[in-house]
């Protein structure tokens, strides 16, 4: 099978990339999805707050997905559902399997990686104790409650204050469970401020910062957890242990880009994001292979995910049509002072540069975002790790850059 563009994954990034690739003139666009319907994780994110920027509407996840799927229906994109991609090679051969075609190969002129991310689970954070039923990730609980119709427990403790954990604190409360508290190891919350207000404060659910779970108790089923305060090095403080009775422990302790396929294709991965190193065109280190959305780096907002999908789709189409030969010369984009993550990691002088910046620590003072050597300084009232900062730099301003671009956040 031949294709101009093959898109892997049909969450928000993949849907937007496929639509945009088609609109940009690619003829044979294939969208490959391992589940039985399109939309990815949006289908279980039944809360609102999606697409405020893109559609100027306050959609829920399923509404946002249906909106994109409707747009997709107006294109000639060909979808493969129930289809698992098992390999991508550097020459852009995609190997997939489904029960209709068996194992088959697609020779694509360009490939868009849009596999998204997965949750960190108990094994990634090493909580001591027994291994009873009732310990699950916030996203698993979200699927059980919102799609399958099961309440995972009656008394829950949530470890980690990522957005999914906060959303699930509210969701479990509405469904009749008691949420005893959200415990966060850092001294600042992981999720968006609005979720702290709407999901915790609205329901009087306490948030404990600088706390973690140090033991899980129970044989068949969780009977409770021990929580402890942590010091500034995030080590539990002896004597601060407290037992909390519960039957469920939800983990909302971070997301990891899912890059098994990227590795197989020989794509260079970033140490900080763990996703592919890409340029502003969303092209990876391998010519003709693009990546977008949470497979690249974990974004806070679907609007940002969609924007990277749009760029990947447009450039993948351009590459497939032979309009350009991919990234030639490029410079590095570096994370400087007070910056944990900057995305993308390279600039190749083709498009405007939209930077996504994750601050390294909270700075509750007016800050300036510097983008050296360009003489721009953007002012913000504060910088917080739970709120990605997006900055757009016009390509005219970057024309003369020869060394690296370095992004920093400083107090002003």
């Amino acid at each position, binding site marked *: 099978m031949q294709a101009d563009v093959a898109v892997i994954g049909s969450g928000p990034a993949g849907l937007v990339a496929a639509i945009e690739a088609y609109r940009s003139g690619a003829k044979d666009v294939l969208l490959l999805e391992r589940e039985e319907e399109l939309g990815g994780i949006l289908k279980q994110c039944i809360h609102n707050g999606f697409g405020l920027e893109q559609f100027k509407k306050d959609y829920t996840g399923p509404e946002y997905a249906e909106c994109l799927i409707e747009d997709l229906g107006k294109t000639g994109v060909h979808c493969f559902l129930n289809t698992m991609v098992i390999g991508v090679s550097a020459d852009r051969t995609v190997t997939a399997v489904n029960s209709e075609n068996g194992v088959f190969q697609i020779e694509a002129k360009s490939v868009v990686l849009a596999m998204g991310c997965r949750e960190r689970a108990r094994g990634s954070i090493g909580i001591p104790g027994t291994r009873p039923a009732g310990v699950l990730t916030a996203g698993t609980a979200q699927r059980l409650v919102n*799609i399958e119709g099961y309440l995972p427990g009656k008394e829950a403790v949530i470890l980690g204050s990522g957005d999914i954990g906060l959303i699930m604190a509210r969701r479990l409360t509405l469904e009749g469970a008691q949420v005893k508290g959200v415990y966060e190891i850092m001294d600042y919350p992981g999720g968006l*401020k609005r979720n702290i207000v709407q999901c915790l404060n609205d329901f009087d659910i306490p948030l404990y910062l600088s706390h973690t779970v140090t033991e899980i108790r129970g044989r068949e089923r969780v009977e409770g957890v021990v929580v402890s305060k942590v010091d500034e090095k995030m080590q539990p403080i002896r004597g601060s242990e407290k037992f909390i009775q519960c039957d469920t422990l939800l983990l909302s302790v971070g997301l990891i880009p899912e890059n098994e396929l990227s590795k197989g294709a020989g794509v260079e991965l970033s140490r900080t994001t763990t996703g592919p190193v890409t340029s502003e065109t969303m092209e990876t280190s391998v010519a003709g292979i693009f990546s977008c959305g949470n497979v690249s780096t974990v974004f806070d907002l679907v609007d940002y995910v969609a924007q990277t999908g749009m760029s990947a789709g447009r450039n993948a189409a351009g590459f497939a049509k032979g309009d350009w030969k991919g990234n030639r010369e490029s410079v590095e984009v570096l994370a400087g002072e007070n910056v944990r993550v900057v995305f993308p990691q390279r600039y190749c002088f083709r498009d405007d540069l939209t930077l996504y910046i994750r601050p390294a620590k909270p700075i509750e003072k007016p800050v300036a975002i510097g983008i050296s050597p360009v003489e721009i300084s953007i002012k913000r009232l504060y910088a917080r790790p739970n709120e990605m900062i997006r900055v757009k730099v016009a390509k005219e301003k970057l024309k003369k850059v020869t060394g690296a671009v370095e992004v920093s956040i400083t107090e002003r």
Partner: protein
Amino acid sequence: MDIEKKHFTCVTCPVGCEVDVEVQNGSIVSMKGNKCDKVKEFVLQELKEPMRVLTTTVRVEGAKYAMLPVRTDKPIPKRLFLQAIGELAKVDLRTPVHISEVIVKDIAGSGANIVATRTMEIRE
């Protein structure tokens, strides 16, 4: 009446402006920290009656999934959430359901309707 000092986080958009407000007789005397005018509207409503969009699910028969996601078509008083959830537990629903279809009218006497947030076809 005395001037009261209050702190709010606006939830109208993801920016989440944090504002310090001085309130007297339910009106705003002064406000600091807002990036747009919608924050004022939000604070006034919070003082009167906190309103939120309710998003939840209802059980549906004959679909490939057990639950249909739904929402209120406009914000409702926060205090009516549990009553609304109680009413939704009694809903008897079968596929097909179309996105935006009204599932329950005037939920919990709020004047808002519960609408489906996705299309759900009959299970093949």
